[in-house]
């Protein structure tokens, strides 16, 4: 006797009901959790043109660190940042900017990073010129005015790291035969991904764009060695010039076959 006046049958029925209720709740919540996990996986993919503020951790880590408080948005003096709304493809509530709309103004004191309470924007970043929000890529060589032989130069002139992050490389213009082309060339070690070049590009659709570094950069095979650099390091040629067999150069054959 346990003090209750329930019959064993009623007890069994209530235990049965308890287990059914438990299964119902667990399955419902399990389904919700499964759906949420899938959605979270999708949400890790940041659209290429959405750029995180300076100092942002790599995307999956960022989404574990950012609590979506919006303090970076508030402390940006130029109001370039926004928090993603549910219908946008950026993880809900996280901060981003689109360079073509408004690029980062590269504040020297980096107020957005200082405002971040979690370090989703890494407080170790103290020099804005060391930030890597993305990487400018001159994606379209067919429409870039400088590639067409004109002197647009706008991306080069607007770059906060002019002559470091973007340089103009002269090249002979084969079309005219007598002019030079000045090709805007991005240097990944200097480019912060602020997006000023993309914003300033005079074309209808920018020929230079900020891409996530992962998309923008190639990666050499780790065993690759650049001969000329190894030579410089060693201070001499690493191969024995004396013993190189110099194969005979073939004379060009006459065109008319005689």
């Amino acid at each position, binding site marked *: 006797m346990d003090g209750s006046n329930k019959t064993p049958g009623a007890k069994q029925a209530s235990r049965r009901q308890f287990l059914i209720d438990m299964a119902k*709740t667990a399955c419902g919540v399990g389904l*919700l959790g499964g759906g949420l996990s899938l959605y979270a996986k999708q949400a890790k993919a940041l659209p290429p043109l959405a750029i995180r503020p300076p100092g942002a951790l790599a995307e999956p880590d960022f989404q574990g660190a950012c609590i979506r*408080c*919006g303090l970076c948005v508030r402390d940006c003096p130029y109001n370039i940042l926004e928090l993603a709304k549910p219908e946008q493809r950026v993880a809900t509530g996280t901060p981003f900017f689109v360079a073509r709309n408004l690029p980062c103004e590269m504040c020297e004191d980096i107020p957005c990073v200082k405002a*971040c309470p*979690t370090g989703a924007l890494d407080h170790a970043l103290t020099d804005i010129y060391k930030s890597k929000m993305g990487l400018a890529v001159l994606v379209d060589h067919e429409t870039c005015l400088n590639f067409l032989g004109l002197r647009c130069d706008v991306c080069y002139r607007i770059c906060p790291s002019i002559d470091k992050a973007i340089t103009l490389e002269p090249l002979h213009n084969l079309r005219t035969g007598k002019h030079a082309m000045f090709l805007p060339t991005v240097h990944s070690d200097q480019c912060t991904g602020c997006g000023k070049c993309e914003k300033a590009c005079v074309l209808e659709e920018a020929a230079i764009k900020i891409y996530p570094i992962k998309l923008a950069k190639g990666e050499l095979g780790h065993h690759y060695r650049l001969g000329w650099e190894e030579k410089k390091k060693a201070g001499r040629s690493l191969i024995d010039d004396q013993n190189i067999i110099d194969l005979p150069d073939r004379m060009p054959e006459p065109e008319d076959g005689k």
Partner: protein
Amino acid sequence: MNTRTIGAEAIAEKGWFSSHKWLILRRFSQLAILALFMLGPLAGLWIVKGNLAYSLTLNILPLTDPYVLLQSLLTGHIPEKLGLIGVAIILAFYFLVGGRVYCSWVCPVNLVTDGAAWMRGRLGIKGGAQISRKMRYWVLAMTLVVAGASGTIAWELINPVSMLHRGLIFGLGTAWAIVLAVFLLDLFVSQKAWCGHVCPVGAFYSLLGKWSPLRVSAVKRDACNDCMDCFAVCPEPQVIRPALKGAKQNIGPAILSPNCTNCGRCIDVCSKDVFRFGLRSGNKAG
């Protein structure tokens, strides 16, 4: 339809104002907190920056939501100092006043679900789907597991609570649809479904307030005339019975369930002034 409205006796006995005192204070608290957050973006008055996940008041006082920070910790991230100070303040505060004070005095979704409950009463909608009140703890556990497994604060992707609050301050977008879904859930699917059964934020805060000293207490339970108005008005009616009817079983008059939100509506609607705010300590029967 019932012929008498909830709290009619209390209004007749104590007057309208006295029988709505805590409700008015609570609405004032909810709207004032929201107003403080919105004064910045709307009027350029930056008293409070941020939202309920983390805020900075007068550029000095950090406040961090412990639930979202816990999820962040589970992804393996350690926050900065300001975030940690903020969470210590919030933990201490809600431990003292009752965890679910967050739900009834701060959370903006409470306005939505109270609205749904009110309309449910007006339209005479009864019954609906049976959802276990324990479901919220399952959802809470699920959100923590998914945070750890996915390495992201996944629940924040769909959390209606933060979506509404952040949306009002930073731009709503389609978050209104998710808030509407919560409203309709409470209105048609099941009574008090969101706050009382599903919401993991409330579940988290209930655990935080499990041992809170500030409690509603049925100090004059002998005067109870069984009008049932407190049960009808309470968002978590199951918490009342042990305290109100427990004299014979030697149970003290304080409502000890962590799911009591300390909203104080039972104090308002009782014509016999059975309830008042009190302390957990010295909770002896008789």
